[in-house]
């Protein structure tokens, strides 16, 4: 069920990302709603679902960007695998663990994106980008993960009562 829900939920996220996020930007960064939705969903879902969410979310994001398709997927895949690994080790996701996942995940996702963009020939000033884009994005993501997690957890509880941990 989670795979089917990915399309409408990530579609809403990408539309908000392209329309609302520009209005609330801090310096050059804003909340990465697709990343937050994928991370929040992956924490309590099967690994395969997280991977599907990463692909769908990343492709949606890249289709609206000048970046090559797949740029956003790369970092999200690493994050989803990491979160899945941590999730299998702990009984419940706590405040610190969620915050830590967003902190590390945002850095991994953004850095991998800058790396791919550099390889694709775009000019990225790494030092400026870290301060001007990554830092504000990190702050926003840390603030917004709680409501996003809460909303998506509610949807997960409603639609997927039988959790499977085949990969854990």
């Amino acid at each position, binding site marked *: 069920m989670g795979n089917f829900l990915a399309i409408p939920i990530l579609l809403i996220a990408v539309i908000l990302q392209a329309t609302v996020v*520009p209005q609330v930007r801090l310096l050059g960064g804003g909340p990465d709603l697709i990343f937050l939705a994928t991370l929040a969903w992956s924490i309590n879902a099967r690994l395969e679902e997280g*991977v599907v969410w990463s692909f769908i979310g990343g492709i949606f*994001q890249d289709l609206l960007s*000048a970046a*090559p398709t797949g740029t956003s997927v790369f970092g999200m895949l690493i994050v989803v695998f990491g979160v899945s690994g941590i999730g299998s080790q702990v009984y419940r996701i706590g405040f610190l663990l969620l915050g830590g996942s967003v902190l590390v995940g945002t850095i991994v996702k953004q850095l991998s994106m800058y790396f791919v963009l550099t390889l694709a020939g775009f*000019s990225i000033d790494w030092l400026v980008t870290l301060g*001007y884009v990554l830092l504000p994005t990190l702050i926003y993501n840390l603030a917004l993960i709680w409501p996003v997690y809460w909303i998506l957890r509610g949807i997960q509880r409603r639609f997927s009562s039988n959790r499977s941990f085949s990969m854990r």
Partner: protein
Amino acid sequence: MPWRRTRLSFLFFSLFMCSCMIILSIIGTLAPAESVLAAPLNVMVGFADDTSRNLSALADDLSEIQSLRERNRELEAAWASAQAELVELREYRADYNRLSELLNYDAPARNQVTVAADVIQSYDPSAVLRTITINRGTRDGISEGMAVVTDQGMVGRIIDVTALASRVLLVTDPSSSISGRLQESREPGNVVGLLTGGLRMRDIPLDAEVSEGELVVTSGLGGNLPPDLEIGIVTSRRQFEFEITQEAEIRSLIDFDNLEIVLIITNFEPIDLTSFDDEEES
């Protein structure tokens, strides 16, 4: 399936698939699929962007009525004083027209054929790239490399075209580099974008007189863009002792975050200078 048995092999398989997708996208193999998938997304984002802009504009209007009234008074006063200048400038134009006819010279700007387009996405979700998406594509005669302008000057260049939409690399993107010229002193330089949204003119000759407020226009050198398109005005200059050129900070008159309508210059044919390079190499 065997590859799903272990987490690590699943990770490597997923990353491999993703890498293949990136490579195919860079070399253009995925372009038709991207074009088809992006079309409905662009329509939805365009609609949502329009609604969001209208709501935002309504909220701004309501909260700024008092300041708008004040601003209106100021503008009326400025308009009145500008009338005298306008009359003088009309005189200059008449003189210019006469002289141009005498010289049988036509400014390239006069012969520009443009296509108007709505901005359907004013922000690149990657946050590090500065691009916009417009609702004109190959069906409207748009092709890569065309210059995009407004009445306030240069917006950017088309870097990606589908049937119904195009992506514009803004002049403020760090990947953008335009050959510019200081309008009064006629000194050349390269105008590059900054991540912070500003512009910087590099490689200005050391002995050039650069004054604040001076207009910077496209030079037409390199044959990629028409000459004399406004890029911005000089806000400051700097010069280091150890460098043989100087730099100037440029401010565009365009509010790139709130672009709604742009014009694409469709009749300028970029000149391909690479053939000269090939001849030299051979």
